[in-house]
């Protein structure tokens, strides 16, 4: 017997950052636990979702992976609304992508909900030899801008899951403390049970159905 009234949330997440920082690979790694070998530039916006369990609560993460290229800015900006969390990604081997963070941050803070929870991800941790951005300066940037910070590797999968989960956990804490009100529209949080049936399916089946998933 399965009780369907179990409290369960749906969070809208964004993955943002400059082109070539590995946003789509992060998403792919998180959703399918593999590295996408032949990744290309994202056209417009891509979509993925995964149900996770955070602190005993079921949360469905609806993740919008945006194109980093400037030409798509106009299209991707319309996806910011209603996002509860965002992964702001830069490439630790490219200072250029690090320098662009301020712009992305402004976009996120103005276009999405002001309460959006953002985690800064320094991706391509596996390429430490080519590092152009130190852990220290990035964590200082994160401190100054009230961001959480992690260095990740979409290739090895290191810290990828943690990034998404940390973000989700922070949002849940904010809900518990009353800082965030899920009932308020535009918070990027919804209740629902539309996907609970998938929960009962074996994990593999759920990922296979990703394409048809109508969450």
């Amino acid at each position, binding site marked *: 017997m399965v009780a369907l009234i179990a409290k369960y949330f749906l969070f809208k997440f964004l993955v943002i950052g400059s082109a070539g920082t590995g946003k789509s*690979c992060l998403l792919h790694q998180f959703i399918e636990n593999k590295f996408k070998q*032949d990744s290309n530039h994202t056209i417009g916006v891509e979509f993925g979702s995964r149900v996770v369990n955070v602190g005993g609560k079921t949360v469905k993460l609806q993740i919008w992976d945006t194109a980093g290229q400037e*030409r798509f800015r106009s299209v991707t900006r319309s*996806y910011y609304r209603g996002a509860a969390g965002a992964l702001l990604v830069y490439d630790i081997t490219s200072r250029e992508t690090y320098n662009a963070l301020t712009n992305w941050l402004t976009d996120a803070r103005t276009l999405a909900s002001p309460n959006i929870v953002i985690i800064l991800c320094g991706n391509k941790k596996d390429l430490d030899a080519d590092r152009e951005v130190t852990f220290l300066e990035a964590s200082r940037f994160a401190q100054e801008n009230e961001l959480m910070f992690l260095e990740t590797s979409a290739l090895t999968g290191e810290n990828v899951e943690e990034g998404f989960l940390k973000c989700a956990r922070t949002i849940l804490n904010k809900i518990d403390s009353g800082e965030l009100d899920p009932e308020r*529209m535009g918070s990027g949080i919804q209740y629902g049970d539309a996907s609970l049936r998938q929960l009962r399916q074996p994990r593999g089946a759920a990922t296979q159905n990703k394409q048809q998933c109508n969450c």
Partner: protein
Amino acid sequence: MERAMEQLNVQLNRLTRSLRRARTVELPEDNETAVYTLMPMVMADQHRSVSELLLNSKFDVNYAFGRVKRSLLHIAANCGSVECLVLLLKRGANPNYQDISGCTPLHLAARNGQKKCMGKLLEYNADVNICNNEGLTAIHWLAVNGRTELLHDLVQHVSNVDVEDAMGQTALHVACQNGHKTTVLCLLDSGADINRPNVSGATPLYFACSHGQRDTAQILLSRGAKYLADKNGVTPLDLCVQGGYGETCEILIQHHGRLFQTLVQMTQNEDIKESMLRQVLEHVSQQSDNHYQRILTSLAEVATTNGHKLLSLSSSFEAQMKSLLRIVRIFCHVFRLGPSSPNNGNDMGYNGNKTPRSQVFKRFRKAELSSGSPKCEARADCPRYKPPDPACSRPVQWMLAGTDAPLELLWHSLDEWLVLISTELDRTQKNPSSSSSSSEIASLLLKQRDSEHSKLPSVLDQAMGVEVEVYPDGEDVISMTANRLSAVIQAFYMCCSCQMPQGMTSPRFIEFVCKHDEVLKCFVSRNPKIIFNHFHFLLECPELMSRFMHIIKGQPFKDRSEWFYEHLLAGQPDTDMVHRPVNENDILLIHRDSIFRSSCEMVSKSTNEKLKQGIAVRFHGEEGMGQGVVREWFDILSNEIINPDYALFTQSADGTTFQPNSNSSVNPDHLNYFRFAGQILGLALYHRQLVNIYFTRSFYKHILGIPVNYQDVSSIDPEYAKNLQWILDNDISDLGLELTFSVETDVFGAMEEVPLKPGGTGILVTQDNKAEYVQLVTELRMTRAIQPQINAFLQGFHTFIPPSLIQLFDEYELELLLSGMPEIDVQDWCRNTEYTSGYDPQDPVIQWFWVVVNSLTQEERVLLLQFVTGSSRVPHGGFAFLMGGSGLQKFTIAAVPYTSNLLPTSSTCINMLKLPEYPSQEVLRDRLLVALHCGSYGYTMA
């Protein structure tokens, strides 16, 4: 002797008693016969007789008989024969005796609601807890039938009110399923488990919902029933939606507010029947303004998410597209309903409870800000459709400002996408050779597609690569996104239209199409199927249709006619039902000897709707009915319509085609007859019946609303057409024709000067304006002379065929649709062909030509015939009787010197094909087909 007397006396006595009672007075010896003697008495509760008969007999009261092996006690309990029941019990009948299905007398009494019998059985210690073979107990039976009073008595004797049957169902389950409110209450009061699942996990609430028992669900929920799914994950809400039980859904939502979202989310589930879900949402939305507005907002949000997903290239196009369109359809349906009726809670808005409205409004403002779109602001003050009734204008106004606000986000994305594509297009066009940025998307897409197949290992930075190979054109960005964007455009159109009165196109949408004209045209020309699949709006608004007309006309005839019928029959119920039962009153009864008049009468008596649904014809005095008769009717009737006796239609110069007679007014009722003729033609087209009439090219053009040209004149006056041609072909400056924009016509014997345009008598025809003159004079001859007839005909025709649909075709195709594909005998054609300017029958080019003609499809042969003769028909009697502009004129092939890529041409008035001397059969075939498919419509000056 005495003994004998005594015996006789006894027998006599018995006989008298038996005769007086009209029955036997002594039970037979064997139980089987005895029981059948007693049974009817028990059924009728004739307890005295039963008692008398049983008195001294050895009958076994527990004797089981019949197929189901019941005792007499069963019979008594079943029939409510309480006296007999007591009698039998007193004589030792077993109150717990079970029949073949395991039923005790108590079961039967409970099933039939025999209160007294139940009481007596209980007195005699009948066991209330016995289950029959299906596991049912007496309380199950009472619950099924809602016998609350009896249940109330019985339940005190029951050890376990939650006793389960074989399926794990308790009395509460069955009571809920059948919606017996008081029974449910009684069971609950007696301690029944409100959340008890049966073997498949279904709870009482589940049962109540599966049958839409609203009040029962209400009771259960208010008594704290949990909302539980069955073992397959089917929830009570699922069941309500599947059954379309709006009221029960409403109750569920009242108690579990979160189900509201779940209900809205269900719009994405394609397994759920749309009509049922719509019905439920319709009901819920009508509960209050607040509900209405919440449903629309939520639907809009779901649609927006879905639309965005559709725009994500990795999502499944089919699934997302269907899902989006379904949600938007439901959204529009609910929107159109409007908020609940005026007396129902609409005071909420006035009574200070402004939260819902102001909330939505705030959200709207926010969307405006975040999207930063100037369009939103423009919308706020642009004049919008206001319903005529001021009473309902308020809700509609706030709906417009409010609930579609979430969708604005999607429309905004759509807009951004189209702008993006248009910049891509621009760049490709301006800079086709170079590249690096112009076709980056295209190359990316191509690469992406390739990579799906290749499994080349790549290292990280390559995968993230900034340097991308360059491809010469940007076509693929469009072909990959066009379908997705088009589906969103369709959704946009639906949302725009549902705010408008029926049949009007929203100005906002027209503005949208104009803005993205270039991109939309590009979509359509790359993949014309888009029109068929998503751009239905083209059909509904001619002003937009005209923008795409040339692209549509370029589609194969077959596709267009399929599309035509698909849309023509859309909205008709059960179009696929072949054997529709015909109402006797709907049969058109036609007299053969006055077919025209009686048909006219019958058709005008029937309604258009009925005629659309199907035609049944019977000829007076004949038995036959069915499709064959209908076909015959159309055939004969169409022949009658052109019967010269009615003077409705006149023959063309070559005698094979017809057009309205300008003098038809000799028949005073002529316009009614033209309307009738239009109706018949429309009806024939509607039901795919062919008619036996061929009209002149110009009349087909009139039906299609295409302007006529001077060559059409040749069908009624070939000499005059030649003269017009001559004027056009030669410089008339120095000829001193002194023509003005007027003609002299003979109106009943008096010559009259008719100006071709205002002040036309004073305007000279010059070399510069001669084309206009020819056009005007053509229109005078071909159109103005028969304008009233054409209008009447079209009035009839359009009752069945909307003008927007028929314009998909050109005049040649219309002829094929109306009159069908003529059979062409290639042997006969070949025999009656002449050759000139260098060709002879033995020429290899001619040999190839006939080989190619033989290999053509029937449709292509017709095109060839039309190409050369201007008509798709072979005259009666075959090709030998082919007519030209002036008398018999055989099909002729003339040689033309070949230059590369030269196409064949034709002179239709002399039936001549000008065939270049092609170097090979392949080239000939190729060039001929190109000419047929491109050149069969429209003339060029040859």
